[in-house]
């Protein structure tokens, strides 16, 4: 079972290590972890996708909440949210197949962001399914390199998972 956790943390050096270290130390599986600053420069948001049964997810959340630098944690898997990841993918692209690749890129509403003599870099955003599908569609041409950010997510509508929702670090 994959769960998407949205975690507000202090924007301080070492916080990422604490979070990542907690996962490895306790033997949890991180699927992806994306981190960046929020509208408040002193706070970063981590979007963590973790895989595990209910008991494991509960422990992950509780252990994360114990970290002093974790301000607030929400499991947003079941809330309506927009989830996206960004992928850059470099594919082999001899002139003869470029047209075909461009068609695929169009279908997925991705973009070509770099052209070399016989390769292209394509940029795509979307949910994990779409990104996977694009990667599969491009595979026959020969993929040279893939870079993915991991998922970031935001609740739909006016609701936020910001500080004001609840100040205590124990909400689970």
């Amino acid at each position, binding site marked *: 079972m994959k769960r998407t956790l949205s975690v507000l*943390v202090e924007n301080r050096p070492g916080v990422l*290590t604490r979070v990542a*270290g907690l996962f490895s*130390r306790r033997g949890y599986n991180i699927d992806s972890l994306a981190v960046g600053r929020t509208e408040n420069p002193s706070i970063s948001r981590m979007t963590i996708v973790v895989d595990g049964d209910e008991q494991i997810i509960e422990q992950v959340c509780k252990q994360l909440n114990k970290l*002093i630098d974790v301000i607030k944690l929400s499991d947003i898997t079941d809330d309506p949210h927009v989830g996206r990841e960004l992928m850059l993918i470099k594919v082999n692209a001899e002139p003869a197949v470029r047209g075909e690749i461009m068609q695929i890129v169009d279908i997925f509403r991705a973009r070509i962001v770099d052209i070399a003599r016989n390769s292209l870099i394509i940029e795509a955003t979307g949910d994990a399914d779409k990104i996977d599908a694009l990667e599969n569609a491009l595979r026959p041409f020969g993929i040279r390199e893939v870079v993915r950010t991991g998922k970031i997510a935001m609740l739909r509508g006016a609701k936020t998972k910001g500080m004001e929702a609840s100040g205590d*670090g*124990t909400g689970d």
Partner: protein
Amino acid sequence: MGQETRMRTGARAVMEVLEAEGVELVFGYPGGAVLPLYHELAQTSIRHVLVRHEQNAVHAASGYARTSGRTGVCFATSGPGATNLVTGIATAYMDSVPVVIFTGQVPTSMVGSDAFQETDITGITLPITKHNYLVKDVDELPRIVKEAFYIAGTGRPGPVLIDIPKDVALAPCQTPIPEKVELRGYKPTYQGHPGQLRALARLLKEARRPLLFAGGGVIASGAEGYLRELAEKIQAPVATSLTGLGAFPEDHPLSLGMVGLHGKPCANHAVMECDLLVGLGVRFDDRVTGAVEKFAPQAKIAHVDIDPAEIGKNVRVDLPLVGDIGCVLKELLPLVEPARHPVWLERIKTLRNNYPLTYGPGGEVRPQWVIERLGEMTRGRAIIATDVGQHQMWAALFYGYTEPRTFISSCGLGTMGYGLPAAIGAALACPDKQVWLITGDGSFQMAMAEIGTAVEQGLPLKILLFNNESLAMVRQLQHFYYDKRYTAVKFTGNPDFVRLVECYGAKGLRITKQEEVVPVLAQAMQEECLVLIDCRISEEEMVYPMVLNGAALNEMLLPE
């Protein structure tokens, strides 16, 4: 005074916070990178105890904290000084002991360059501290130090480390000590949830065979009075974990003693037969539960703990309740109705009679018997520090603890070498109490250099060293699990411990026969100096009861 013009350095700001926190005593070991702190420490009235190894500075701070209920403090230098702390920090972490550790670090400009005596101690201690800091900006230092004490001593206590680069300690610091600690990510829950409290009261009312199971959390929150009130009000027997020894007086008729792989038979049976088990500040360690799927099979389990992450971690829990044990019990007491459980208490009595704590035949001087005598002679009031091994389990089983904060031992990590430095910390924290160290020849040799510290500090420690010239607990494991092939457990090069402590100016006594036990213990108690008793015992002694791997708690091996 008169020094007011002296520049206020980061190091001085640290001392101001220590003084504001009421710190009177620190343990430590100096070195170049931490000298700015030492320089300022010397200008304060805070006492410094120079240990013989940094690991023991943390252990001593931990012994101080466990017996006094205050936060222990220690200092060490960068690099090897800092890495020597690791076992001590992990030990304190596992037993939730509040300690604040200061390490010196190479100057900021050299951090990350593999400079002389540099280690990434915050990286190394990340998984074994409650929190840690590398201070990069001197203006953050007052806040960080204040925060560290707050974090170490509140919620579930634990060690907090502050790594201070030398230039930061020497830099001018203008920032005042903040009035308050503001940590938006740290808000421990003390009060119990009212609904859950009522639910627990209901469970207690419905239970016909309730069992209270008290751990270190009871002692940490000073809740032993409430625990006793509850137990008496509902007439429920009380068992404890190893860290919980002393949370409930063992001479009380409702006391069952310690539960676990070497727990008391009656307590273990009670766990298997109760219909409600209320865990109070315990973490259901695997040394408590035995085979976890066979643990407390007939019971609903209620679990009260200040750390939500402990609830449901190891055992299934029917009723979780997050909060400080003291707050929770105080709120719970008016909600529970007085109860009687004559049938259950009758059954407990039968179990007690059918399965007494015994130790079978053995060598000339029986360690269990010696500890029973010690318990009688001190009326269970002395502070007992132990190391790790058979002697630790005998000390847990046969002494008879009557007061909280009188049993100090490395329970979670099982750290040999803990006892002597922890006893030093205890003796400094509680000068009016008798402090006994119960140790083995293996453990003692891991920390015996601290005899120097104890003598230097004039501490009248009493050391009962069970000398079997072996690592007998490991030998016991080899006996049961490795076909009695005793490998690497025999010491043939032990020193004469009596003469050893006499070299330090302390007193050595010896016990080789049973009739010497009481007179020698009595003599040790009379002496005003440090006394070590070299008590010769057989390496073939066993710790019973013993629950073998995979077995349930009531499937104990008992002495024949």
